[in-house]
């Protein structure tokens, strides 16, 4: 009898510890999603600023400048639900500008232009990485939230379900 009670208490305690560990893990995942999202937003803002610097430098022709400035402004003004589309459009505008025949030769000739283009490219690469990391942790969080135990004990509390951030962020192919 006593052994049974001890066993039950033991199981309950172990179970409780396990559930609270799972809750803690989910909480950490949610925190990491938030951190990753902040990093992604920062990377996008940095890319926008770099593109705007280039557009307003006076080193490009006015048509290319205007295209880039328009895309930057649209990305900045986009409603939260349309951010992904607007940021993808900025990628496409950058790709079109950098992919123009003669663009690279022209840039090579001016040092300040070369630096500004390099800034855009490194910021764009950071967006690519930040988005990969964000979607990775978002996927793991979504998966953890779907587990039966997490659903039964409502382990995620009020934390909203993360959403993947899909966009065209491939600058490569430019210059060809």
């Amino acid at each position, binding site marked *: 009898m006593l052994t049974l009670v001890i066993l039950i208490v033991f199981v309950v305690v172990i179970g409780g510890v396990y559930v609270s560990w799972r809750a803690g893990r989910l909480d950490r995942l949610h925190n990491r999603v938030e951190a990753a999202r902040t990093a992604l937003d920062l990377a996008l803002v940095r890319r926008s600023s770099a593109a705007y610097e280039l557009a307003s430098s006076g080193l490009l022709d006015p048509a290319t400048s*205007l295209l880039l400035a328009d895309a930057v402004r649209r990305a900045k003004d986009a409603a939260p639900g349309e951010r992904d589309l607007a940021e993808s459009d900025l990628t496409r505008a950058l790709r079109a500008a950098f992919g123009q025949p003669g663009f690279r030769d*022209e840039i090579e000739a001016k040092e300040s232009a070369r630096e500004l283009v390099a800034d855009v490219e490194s910021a764009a690469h950071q967006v690519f990485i930040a988005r990969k990391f964000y979607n990775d942790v978002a996927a793991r969080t979504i998966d953890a939230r779907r587990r039966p135990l997490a659903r039964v004990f409502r382990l995620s509390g009020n934390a909203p379900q993360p959403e993947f951030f899909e966009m065209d962020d491939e600058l490569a192919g430019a210059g060809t």
Partner: protein
Amino acid sequence: MRIGIACPYSWDVPGGVQQHIRDLAEALIGMGHEVSVIAPADDDRPLPDYIVPAGKAMPVPYNGSVARLAFGPLSVSRVRRWLKDGGFDVLHVHEPAVPSLSLLACWVAAGPIVATVHTAMPRSRVLLAAQPVLRSALEKIDGRIAVSEAARTTLVEHLGGDAVLIPNGVATRRYRHAEPLDGWPGTGGAIGFLGRMEEPRKGLSVLLKAFEILAAERAGLRLLIAGPGDAGEQRHKLPEPLRDRAVFLGEVTEEEKVRVLHSVDVFCSPNTGGESFGIVTAEAMAAGVPIVASDIDAFRQLLRDGRAGELFAAGDAGDLAAAAARLLDDPARRAELSVAALAAVADYDWDVVAREVVSVYETVVMGRATVGVAQ
């Protein structure tokens, strides 16, 4: 005069600005001027002699949609060479605030520049115009033309300065003669309509109701309808026995459009509003087809208060049926209106419009050197 015209949009794609430039260039050439148009276009496509292709346009997101534009170093060097070789008396750029060849031409050129603005510019884009690089290009423009009051208003309000209003012309010659479609107009009478079917302001539903009234007494009367939209849905608005007597062609080419105009006894413009000029009605006038149109301001002006076409109360199917019946039953009246319409539309012909454009050219070139390349 030697005139250089810059077109921002791809010549291979149909569009309002391209058509405007083509008609203007041909009218100017007809008047004895030398014209060269630089436009984004494929080099290997057959092009009119006056076109200088600036290379393929790139599809790129701009202003909320994807546009085919020409920009970048290669476009700049082609524009520069075109300006150097051209020795133009005047440079005429269209839509200079669009990031393409027109803006580049403004940037590169030195000398007399005329710009035509086609679309009303939203404020956000004008704010961008404050950018130094853009401003220095646009400040070189000596004379501005707006094709509509809306375009002129935005120009004046947001950029300051003034613009001359010169509306689009009608290439009347293109509409004058055409073969009717096979089997049209027939002997029972035929009424025609051109336009987007489901757009309520185009008024197709008013015409369909009037057709119901007219068809009850006229066994052979038919309807010929051309324009994009869902034909099945429109056909079902007619009672079953009449459905075979309405022919829907869907979207038609420019040549088919002219044939449609020559395939009917009466052309109907039932618009309930939203027209500032009425280009389709003007084209029908140029084809010499008798017209019955709603009495909205644009049509009242175009049809000389009813002297060049029958007017009916906008939106009133009964009144439309009565007006159409008067024309269908009276061949002499139709012939009279046809002559009156041809005479009235001559005022809007491109030859007239082009003469106004030339007077703008003459004003800006006075005492100036020819167009060159800025340093």
